[in-house]
Every structure is written in C-alpha cells, then in structure tokens.
C-alpha cells in the first residue's frame, strides 16, 4: 500500500488521516466497512486549513479506525518502509513530500509513527482542537494532532487548527491559542522511572541522549516515580474500547457503508455485514468494550476507570507542581516489524502503556527525536519550546 487512500492534489502541502472528513472525498477510516462512504461535510480542522490558504494533498492510510500500532490493520494494506512498519503520514513528512499532516491520536498510533520515523508530532490538550468531522472511536480521549518535521512547523499548523468550535460540545472556550515561546533554561523535566524501565535499550539510550541535550540547555532532569502507569493503561483501554464499541455500532449495514450480499433477516444483515467488514483488531476491541459495559460489570470496569482517570490526573498534576514537563518513551522499540495480526490486541495493549497517561488525562504530549514529552493541560507551548530548543542545538 502507498501512502494515500485517496490522493486529492499532488501540489497540496498538508495531508489528513482518512479518519478526518473532507466533503465529497471518500472517507474510509482504513476499513472495508466505509470503502464507499462519501461524507456530506468537512471537519472543522479542514475548513480552518483551507480558510488559511493551505491545500490538502490527500487522505493518508490509517489502521482501521486508528486503533492499531501505526496503520498495519488498514483494509488497504499496511504502509511499510524497508520491510518495517511505518506510519503513512509520518513517512510523507519525513521524506519532505508534505509540510505537515493531521492525525487522530486515539491510542497513540501517530505518536509511535512519529517516534519511529524521527519526525515531530503533537497531541494537543484535549478540547483545544475540534473533533467535529472525525470518524469517532474513543471520544473522551481522542484528539487531532499535527505531524511535521520540526517544532516550528508543528506550531504553525497547530495555531491554525486550534480554537473554539461550537459544533463540538467538548471544545474549550478560547477562540485562539498563540503558543507563546517560553525560556527553556532553568526548566525542570522529570523522567518517569516506571516507563523508562519498560523500554528497550535502544530507546533508553535515546532518552539518555535527549536528557543530555536538555541539560546542555540548562534544564534540570530528574527521575521521578509515577506509580499508576499500569492502572492508567488498563483504565484507558477500558474507556477506549467501550466508547469505540458504542461509536462503531452505527456501522450496521442499514444506512450506508458495507452491507453483506445475502441475508434473510435484520439480525443476519447486522451480523454478516459487521463480520465481513471489520478486521480482527476492531472485532477484539468491540468484544472487549461490550464486555466492560455489560450489566453487572459497569461499576467494576467502566465506572472504576473513570475514577482511575481522576486519580491519574491528580498524580500527574503533583508532578507538574514541581516539573515543567515529563520525559518518557513514546513506544518500547525503535522499530517494528510486521507481526501476526492475531496478536494485535495484546500488542497494542502492551505498547499503550507509554501513551495512555496523556490519552486518559487529556494532557498535551509531543513526540520529538524519538522521545515523548508530556506537559500539564494548556501547556502545549512548553512542549513546543523544549522541542524547538533541542532541535536548535544541532543547527
């Protein structure tokens, strides 16, 4: 599979994930279910980009509904580079084919893709970028972010797409964000020990290197403990799966999208359409998500996860009382090979430990030079400033 599911304009400079709607251009979300789905309206971010004079190059390949590691479950085939998994948008950016790309981060896929490709990606504070026009899966944590080759370009595009949207009930009230540069020297950055220990040696070495660069800028780097990363991971997996199950239930073969050829009654229409059109990972997520919402399990699964969300947010706030940012791996390894798709649910779960904390708390997270930086909510500018300063060291 190439990089685009639908190419729009070869001279365009911004690509968007195929989970983001553009009026009149088919939107598949990487699924057979939506192979011929033609949206009637454009996402708010697309309208903002077009209004500011940017041209959309096309719809980049994504894993089915954005649930996987970095696109390997796409119905149209995984995007691979030299036999290794690669994110379509991150690779286009890396190759200099486009200036930037918009990607939906729901379970960390664009963060991992950016880390592997060595480009920048920001998942901004939840609610600062409208989700109107995203083929939704996990509404309480998914967020459109920006992939670009450096922090300056990320900031340029983020400034265009962020701002209040009355069409999105969770959109925060600020009309505009200016992401003011802040001085990085004398900042304090915390490395989360629990996440560092889970990474491969190669990734650990990369974190060490980044930490040396920070010190060279006058930043204090210390190791801290965040003893709830596993809880955050499980809780986000529960919330994410439950919300995804609910959101994908609209794809039933009745109104639009894939419908099975033969059916005798409505139940068969539902079961066969969904069985034939969803991939293994989507089905596994739906089964898991249905189970955690089942009668008698709600209190101990979904409701408990909502409570864990608050505990994690409190614990992360405690770190931000003393530190400006957290430094952590974005994923366990520096590269990923194609793997047996039957393992996908476990594989994604394992990797989500690195990305779950910002997903569940709504904090901004930025991947740069293969590492992940996390800041307190609304402190996206701190992340952009740190990333820019470290990138400046090499110049």
């Amino acid at each position, binding site marked *: 599979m190439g990089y685009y599911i639908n190419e729009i304009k070869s001279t365009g400079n911004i690509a968007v994930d195929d989970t983001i709607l553009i009026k009149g251009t088919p939107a598949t979300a990487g699924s057979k279910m939506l192979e011929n789905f033609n949206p009637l309206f454009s996402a708010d971010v697309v309208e903002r980009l077009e209004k500011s004079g940017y041209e959309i190059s096309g719809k980049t390949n994504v894993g089915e509904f954005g649930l996987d590691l970095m696109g390997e479950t796409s119905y149209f085939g995984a995007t691979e580079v030299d036999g290794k998994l690669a994110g379509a948008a991150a690779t286009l950016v890396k190759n200099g084919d486009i200036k930037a790309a918009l990607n939906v981060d729901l379970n960390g896929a664009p963060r991992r893709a950016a880390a592997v490709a060595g480009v920048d990606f920001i998942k901004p504070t939840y609610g600062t970028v409208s989700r109107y026009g995203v083929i939704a899966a996990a509404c309480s944590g998914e967020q459109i972010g920006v992939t670009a080759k450096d922090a300056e370009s990320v900031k340029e595009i983020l400034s265009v797409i962020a701002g209040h949207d009355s069409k*999105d009930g969770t959109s925060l009230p600020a009309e505009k964000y200016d992401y003011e540069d802040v001085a990085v020297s004398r900042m304090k950055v915390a490395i989360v020990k629990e996440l560092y220990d889970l990474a491969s040696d190669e990734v650990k070495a990369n974190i060490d290197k980044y930490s040396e660069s920070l010190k060279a800028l006058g930043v204090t780097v210390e190791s801290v403990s965040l003893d709830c990363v596993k809880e955050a991971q499980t809780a986000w997996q529960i919330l994410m799966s439950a*919300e995804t199950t*609910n959101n994908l239930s*609209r794809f039933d073969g*009745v109104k639009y999208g894939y419908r099975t050829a033969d059916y005798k009654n409505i139940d068969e229409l539902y079961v066969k359409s969904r069985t034939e059109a969803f991939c293994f990972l989507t089905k596994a997520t739906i089964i898991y998500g249905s189970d955690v919402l089942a009668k008698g399990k709600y209190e101990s699964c979904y409701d408990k996860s909502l409570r864990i969300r608050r505990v994690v947010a409190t614990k992360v706030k405690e770190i931000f009382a003393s530190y400006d940012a957290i430094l952590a791996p974005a994923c366990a390894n520096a590269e990923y090979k194609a793997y047996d798709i039957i393992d996908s649910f476990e594989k994604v779960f394992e990797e989500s430990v690195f990305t779950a904390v910002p997903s569940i708390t709504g904090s901004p997270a930025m991947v740069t030079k293969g590492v992940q930086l996390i800041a307190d909510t609304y402190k996206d500018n701190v992340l952009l400033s740190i990333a820019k300063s470290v990138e400046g060291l090499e110049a």
Partner: protein
Amino acid sequence: MKYELVIGLETHVELSTDSKLFCSCGGHSSPKEPNDCVCPACCGMPGMLPVTNKHAIELAVKAGFMLNCKINQYTTFDKKSYYYPDLPASYQTTQWFNPICVDGSVEIGERTIGIKQIHLEEDAGKLVHDDATNTSFVDYNRTSVPLIEIVSRPDFRSSDEVIAYLKKLKSSLQFAGISECEEGAMRCDVNISVRPEGSEEFGVRAEIKNMSSLSEIKDAIEFEKVRHVDALERHTEILQQETRRWDDVKRRTFPMRNKETAADYRYFPDPNLMPIVIDDEWLEAIRASMPATAEEQSLRYTEMGIPEKEAMVLASDRKLSDTFDAVVALGRAPKSVASWILTECMGNMKRLELDELKIDSAKLSRIIELVDTNEITRPAGKKVLSAVFESDVDVDKYCEENGLNVKVDEGFILTTVQRVVAENPDAVANYKSGKTKAMQALFGLIMRELKGTGDPVVIRDLLQKELDK
C-alpha cells in the same frame, strides 16, 4: 380473598421544541414527507457531534415544576445501546445516571401519585413495513426529537386513577406549553401487579409496552387484573415478570418475544456531552417563565367579576383560558366573553364534536362587539358564530350578506309588525280571547320577516302595543 391492583406508569411525551434534541433539524411538527427532516447528526453519520438544545432542558425543568419535582441542577446524558433499524446510531441518548427531575407528586382527587423521576431522551425513527414486497423502510424524521419520560411510583390502585392521572398530565403539560400532547405524542408503559389487599409486598409484575389510547390503557389494565387474580386464585397460569403488548383486535394482552426484552443496554455517560449545570439564575428564569397555574388563573378571573364556577371552568382548559385572555385583551367585557365562550362556543364544540376550542380570537371579539353595541342581535351573533365554527367565515361580510345588521330603522320594524298583525286576524282573535301562545306565533312570523335582524325586545314591545290597541 380481596386483591388490589398496584400500577406504575412510564409516560413518554414529545416536547414542543422548534428543533431536535441534539441537532438543528425541525422538531416534532415539521416534517411532511419521510426523511424530510434529517441531517448527518440525527441520521447517525460518523463525524457529527451532538449539541444540546437548551429549550428542551428548559421544558423538562418546567415539567419538573408542574409535577412538584426536585430539579437536579447537575444533570448528565448517557448512551443506551441496542441495534434496531429505527435507531440510526445504534444508541439512544438518554439520562440514566442523573435525571433532570426527581421526587415529585401529582394530586388526583384525594390521592397523591408519587413521581420518581423525569428524564430527557431522544425519540427513535419509524419503521414502515410493506408486506407486498416484504421490505421495511425507515423514516428518521422523528429520530432525536426530544422526549421526556415521566416515571411514576407504583401508587395507582385502579384503572380510573391511571386515566385521571393521564388526563391531568396532558392538560398540565399543554397548559404550560411543554407538549402539544397530540394524538400518539404521549405513550405509556404500564407496570402492573396484583396483591392481597393490605399486603406490603409487591406481586409479580407485567409491563405492557407502548400504549397511547386511554380506552386501550383502561381495557388492558382491566384484562391484566383478571388475568393476575385468576392466576393467584385459580392457578390458571404461573405469573412471571415479563413484557406484554395489548392486542386491540383480540382485546387482550400477549407476552412479547423474550428476545425483544432481554437486552443489556450497556448504559454509560456520553463523553461528547458535558454535564449540564443549571445554576440558580437559570433555574429562577425558567420558574419565572412558568404560566400561572389553573388555581391562580381562576382567582384572577373571579377578580375580574366572573362567577367562581365559570372562572374555574375557564381556567381548567388552556385553550379556553387563552381565548378568554386574548378576547378580553381586545377590549371586550370579561363577563360577556365568559358567557360567549362557556355557552355559545362550548355549544358549538359539542354540536361539532370538537375536543378543544379552536377559534380566531379576533373574530370572536368582533361578534361580541357587534352584539354588545347592538349592531346585531344576540341570535344573529349566535348565527355568525356557528358559521365561523363551521367554515371560518369573515364576520362583517357574513352579517352584511345575510342581512343581520340591526341598522333596520324602527319605522320599518313597525310597518312589518302592523302588516303581520293585519294579515293574521285569527291569531289576533285567539290572543284577545286569552290564548297568550298566539302572541309567540306572531312574534315568530315577524322575526322571520325581519330575518332575525331587529332587536327582539323592541319587536316584542311594538307587537304588544299593536295587540293591545
């Protein structure tokens, strides 16, 4: 052994909003053709996000005030999942965890019926089945139209109480402008069980789903009562908790297939809809916008000089009181207006079998004005009113075309009286011999000649003088 009925009701009512609950499509009264009134949001298309209709929140709060509820100033929306073609997103947005109103009550006669809660939710679409082609069609016009579900406590002890409650609910909701309560816009689930009188425990409960006709509700309750008592007394069947439906042709209830009822709805809070916080200021603004209650209205009318009994009748019906207020506002005397509405209008409603008063208040006002200023007679006024009820005629034009105007001079009336007296010597002779009825006959003849235009008092006076000559 004596048994008593225990009944609880879940009543769904469509709210009178201009738009749907989470999108800007028109509300319940807009659509004409199937799927005329839909958008990507209420069709369940991906990418759309819900935006809550504030007016629906306000109407639900008003319903809470009407039914003496506590208003939850922090209220949330939740998702209820099930697959059915009339539910385009395969989930319904409702209020499961924090309903907007709780703990209310309704008085019916001597009895108080507890209200457990009122919650807001969106309606589903409609399925139309075509047997000829064995095809089902979906119409999403009704999808996402706002509803409130009013959940009573199991406080009813008879079908009469249920009917009285539903009638009161309907008039209260119409009165406060919360719902039009049109045919079919008020639907009930009836939870019913039977227990030995005096027992505190509940019997095995049956739920009869989706009833809208009052007479069917009454019949279904009576049927269930017999079925339950028979089961307990004569062991005709073993009762089980189940969902049933009323078959109006067979005049009995039937159990619904288990599959339709054993669903697990997987409720969870909707992450796209932030909790709604109704602050004190908003709450007071809604309270201030409540119309006067029937009692307050009635008191206001007696203060205007309307006798208490008439005032109460006027105040108990929103259409009557609205019309009364409108006509009085147009400058007519309250007493006159009350009498015209309560006697003449209600007479026409009865004659034409109308459930509610529907008349242009400007027309009613004009008729009363013409009569009160002696431009036309009261019988002529009644005649125009009937014509307005029947074919919505123009008042002035109708009077002119039918010669109803009193502008006939007394000289003309006098010559007519003299002529009729002269032409009917037998009647005059009868009158003179003591048969007073003869005068009534003469009066009728004169009225016919005058086409009902003259003032009857004047005519009677002139006739009397003529006969006494």
